[in-house]
């Protein structure tokens, strides 16, 4: 048996693959966040950035890569969850009383599935343009896709803004457990620094959520307008 085969056939190997795909997805989230934050630089910068990306020759390669990554992370997670469920065919009559586990660790699969549902909604909304088609096809003065106008008009509707804020909260709960588990899973463990590493991981999860949530909030509060 090859080493990679052997590794991926073990429970730890599968968890490492799950964690590694999670790290790659967090990388994507950070790049996506930086792109989103161009909103604060005004319509010119954001639309130029969007135009550059939408006409990039590697756009579809990137999209296929991302779908593969999300698919891998989801498949591995569901497979792991099912195997873990099968490891206890008869449950406790009194239930297991939680001592040190958190809401976040126990509901990581649920928050993950909710994030996946949000992802579908988000793609239908801003990529396909099916949720609010009236905002999705606008062009700016230079004939480029008016992403700035689309985002600002969309989040001008409170229901849409609230749905994104709820989704970001759920994403935050998912990332918080995921990021704080990283050092444990990859065996980065030093008595002196492990606390600081876990704080930093929690901080990164919070930064991603706050950064993304700042966009609908700013539109809603009128800080950003057309």
């Amino acid at each position: 048996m090859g080493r990679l085969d052997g590794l991926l056939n073990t429970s730890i190997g599968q968890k490492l693959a799950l964690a590694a795909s999670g790290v790659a997805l967090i990388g994507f989230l950070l790049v996506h966040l930086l792109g989103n934050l161009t909103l604060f630089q005004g319509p010119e910068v954001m639309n130029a950035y969007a135009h550059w990306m939408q006409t990039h020759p590697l756009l579809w390669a990137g999209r296929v890569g991302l779908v593969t990554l999300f698919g891998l992370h989801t498949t591995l997670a569901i497979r792991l969850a099912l195997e873990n469920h099968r490891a206890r065919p008869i449950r406790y009559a009194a239930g297991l009383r939680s001592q040190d586990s958190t809401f976040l660790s126990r509901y990581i699969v649920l928050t993950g599935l909710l994030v996946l549902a949000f992802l579908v909604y988000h793609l239908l909304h801003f990529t396909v343009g099916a949720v609010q088609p009236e905002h999705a096809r606008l062009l700016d003065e230079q004939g480029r896709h008016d992403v700035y106008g689309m985002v600002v008009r969309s989040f001008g509707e409170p229901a849409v803004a609230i749905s994104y804020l709820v989704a970001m909260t759920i994403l935050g709960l998912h990332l918080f457990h995921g990021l704080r588990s990283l050092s444990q899973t990859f065996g980065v463990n030093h008595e002196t620094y492990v606390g600081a590493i876990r704080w930093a991981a929690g901080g990164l999860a919070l930064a991603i959520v706050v950064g993304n949530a700042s966009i609908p909030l700013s539109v809603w509060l009128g800080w950003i307008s057309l």
Partner: protein
Amino acid sequence: MNFTLVVWRQARAEETGRMVEYRVEDVSPDMSFLEMLDVLNEDLIVSGEEPVAFDHDCREGICGMCSLVIDGVPHGPERATTACQLHMRHFKDGATITIEPWRAKAFPVIRDLVVDRRALDRVVQAGGYVSINTGSAPDANSIPVAKHDADVAFQAAECIGCGACVAACPNASAMLFVAAKTQHFARLPQGQPERTRRTINLVEAMDREGFGACTNHYECAAACPKEIPVRFISDLNRDFIKAAAHHGRFGTLPPQGDLEE
């Protein structure tokens, strides 16, 4: 003190079990949980019923035989305490107490509250030892071990193999057990030559027994009567990555039957 007990009764492995309610009266607050069960069993025997089967041996918290999930917590509500060292004064008079066996696919019920924990033995048989004959005790300090390493190795070696970590884990994972059994050698010079093989073999043996995987709930360490910390799981993960990255060989476990006694 008087209690209402709701106890898992199952006559044989092949039969389905059910929860049965019993009253137990005139219990001294100084009795251990197992002594309280002894009182119940004496009552049952007198009234011509089958006593409740449960595992126990030393009754001083060091053998790892007692295995009761009490009100949803392995070994009961007191931290760092086995069920045999848990005293009835920690319960409210008149309380209803639920008692169940360890629940895991790898731990089939033999009878009532007794489960088959040989899965843990088979995991250790897959390499949780040092193969060379060490002879008699060596001269002190002939193999220097740093004080800190000796302390950490001893902390891992405190595992009594009771399986509470598996019982407490929402995934019925045995990672804390396997972590303890690998890490008490990983810190010592004698454990180094077989470290890679031990790490891979124990993890593969653990998977083969049908335990779940760790998803970092940390319920295991909370339930552990010896307070083995979850950092050993992280150390095991690191050893496993190293074993895979260097020269580790996977899939070399002998067939499961060969490991039986």
